[in-house]
């Protein structure tokens, strides 16, 4: 699919368009024509859901792949954005929902998600490695239990249902084709945005901090502020993903951002690969395929259908074991097999 080396070094001349690998054009063309042959289920559940989970995982990939910060709170940021849309907008829970128009409740959702992510970041950036994971996991579980127990604002255990996207430009965005293109647009938008930002001073500084925080400070960068800013930026793809997820299922409840989904986002990012923004989308696609079809396969083999988690778990183990860079890493390994110098075993680079 995508070429992970494409994020390479400060590019050397030539038009930007001309240097896009052929795989991207093929994948892009394919994704554009999917609605012409795919069923509603495939468009809405398989691709739509992959794009959404991909975006939420992308926010983790940005933090972890470029910044070395493994935040488990990205699903929580997405869930919060979904909740704000439900609370400020329209839902079946008329006692709580404010019925504000989309041009207020969507910006409100993005803003609140960004503020929340910034606070989480502010807490988490003082820690490293396993402690970042612990703190963000604590935030995620606190959010889960709080939404489950708070009935005034979050409507407790049952959450909200009947949340529909606004009827903009005369289009019913819940229609599978319309929703497919909506999710595709935002997925591509955030994919390109993350790719673009990765080469900006902000993105390069983040990668520098990942490689060597002490040296970054010795170059004049404020390491803590950059890390917090990364959390703020990463809130946006997660929040858009959360809003789309809420529209897709027409509901949001504590379980949407429960511990299971929180871990799933990490699994998706790791399966796909953390080194390039395409990874989370590859991982999300594999995850959705497994989740949607493994039940049938397992039942056909005479096993209980709910064991699909076992398949995902085994896949996760295999990936972590053989290819720490995820599926992208496997792809890169295969591609590099015939580009290695037979004597020194190192990659032969075209300078």
């Amino acid at each position, binding site marked *: 699919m995508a070429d992970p080396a494409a994020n390479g070094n*400060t590019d050397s001349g030539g038009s930007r368009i001309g240097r896009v690998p052929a795989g991207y054009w093929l994948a892009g063309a394919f994704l554009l024509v999917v609605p012409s042959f795919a069923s509603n289920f495939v468009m809405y559940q398989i691709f739509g859901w992959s794009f959404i989970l991909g975006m939420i995982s992308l926010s983790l990939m940005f933090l972890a792949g470029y910044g070395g910060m493994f935040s488990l709170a990205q699903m929580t940021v997405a869930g919060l954005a979904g909740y704000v849309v439900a609370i400020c907008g329209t839902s079946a829970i008329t006692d709580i929902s404010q019925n504000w128009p989309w041009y207020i409740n969507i910006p409100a959702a993005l803003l609140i998600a960004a503020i929340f992510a910034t606070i989480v970041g502010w807490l988490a950036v003082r820690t490293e490695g396993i402690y970042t994971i612990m703190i963000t996991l604590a935030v995620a579980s606190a959010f889960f239990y709080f939404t489950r127990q708070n009935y005034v604002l979050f409507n407790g255990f049952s959450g909200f249902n009947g949340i529909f996207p606004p009827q903009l430009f005369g289009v019913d965005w819940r229609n599978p084709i319309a929703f497919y293109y909506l999710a595709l647009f935002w997925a591509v938008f955030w994919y390109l945005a993350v790719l*673009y930002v990765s080469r900006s001073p*902000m993105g*390069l500084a983040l990668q*520098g901090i990942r490689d060597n925080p*002490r040296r970054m*400070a*010795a170059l*004049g*960068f404020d390491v803590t502020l950059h890390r917090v800013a990364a959390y703020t930026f990463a809130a946006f793809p997660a929040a858009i993903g959360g809003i789309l997820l809420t529209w897709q299922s027409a509901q949001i409840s504590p379980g949407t951002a429960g511990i299971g989904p929180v871990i799933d986002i990490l699994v998706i990012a790791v399966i796909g690969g953390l080194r390039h923004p395409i990874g989370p989308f590859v991982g999300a696609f594999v995850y959705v395929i497994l989740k949607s079809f493994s039940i049938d396969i397992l039942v056909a083999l005479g096993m209980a259908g709910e064991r699909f988690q076992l398949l995902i778990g085994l896949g996760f183990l295999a990936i972590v074991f053989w290819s720490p860079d995820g599926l992208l890493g496997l792809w890169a390994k295969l591609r590099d097999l015939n580009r290695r110098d037979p004597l020194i075993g190192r990659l032969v680079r075209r300078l």
Partner: protein
Amino acid sequence: MRLSDRHVGRRSATGSSNALELRGVSKRFGALLALDDVSLTLRPGERRAVLGSNGAGKTTLFNCISGDFPPTAGEIRLYGEDITAFPPQERIRRGLRRTYQISLLFTGLSVLDNVYLACRGVLRRRFSMLRPSRSEPAFLSAVELVELAGLDEVGGVPVSELSYGQQRQLEIAMALAGAPRLLLLDEPAAGLSPTERQALVDILKNLPDHIGFVIIEHDMDVALQVSEFVTMMHNGRVFKEGKPRELESDAEVQALYLGEVDG
């Protein structure tokens, strides 16, 4: 070179004072007194070698000056300004630069990106999410520095694939980014081949006059060629100071240090 207004203003305001002034600087790690009441003065543009055996406190001295580990006692002034309590990035923005004994580079990024980051560190808009254009001053000076360090052929290569000597050269290039006024060079010649050493000496000798440096170096050839004044350290204290030639002939110094390094 390319100075932001901020830097120019600051320099002219403090131009008459010493480049670096340490008064009674001590650093204690638990029971170990790594630096014991060190005082040191550098004129602007002065080139100073710091010698001493392993454990004499040379790198700790650098860590205190650069702010990596602040001193436990004493005062540090950079061009007249008290920087004792400043975090590293604030010291860097005032014209201080350092290299590390063990290369601390961004191994996942290319050579050019490493130098570009070094150039961007002292400029505004460090949080910019816009990609740099090819005509951006920081980008142009990064290209220039990569050439100066003789690394232009490997500009696009990830640092993890560089040879040791190339990584050391990259360290120097990064220390020269922005508008440096005072460099702290921690064993820049360690691990370099004789040819690379000569290239390093040339780079250091050809630095503009207003750039001073303090160099820690075990290779006496390199250290004495590039410095005008030498400070000997021993057990965390300043042991002796003088012109290179005076110290070379000093019996105590020879017993302490020169004797240990076979020429």
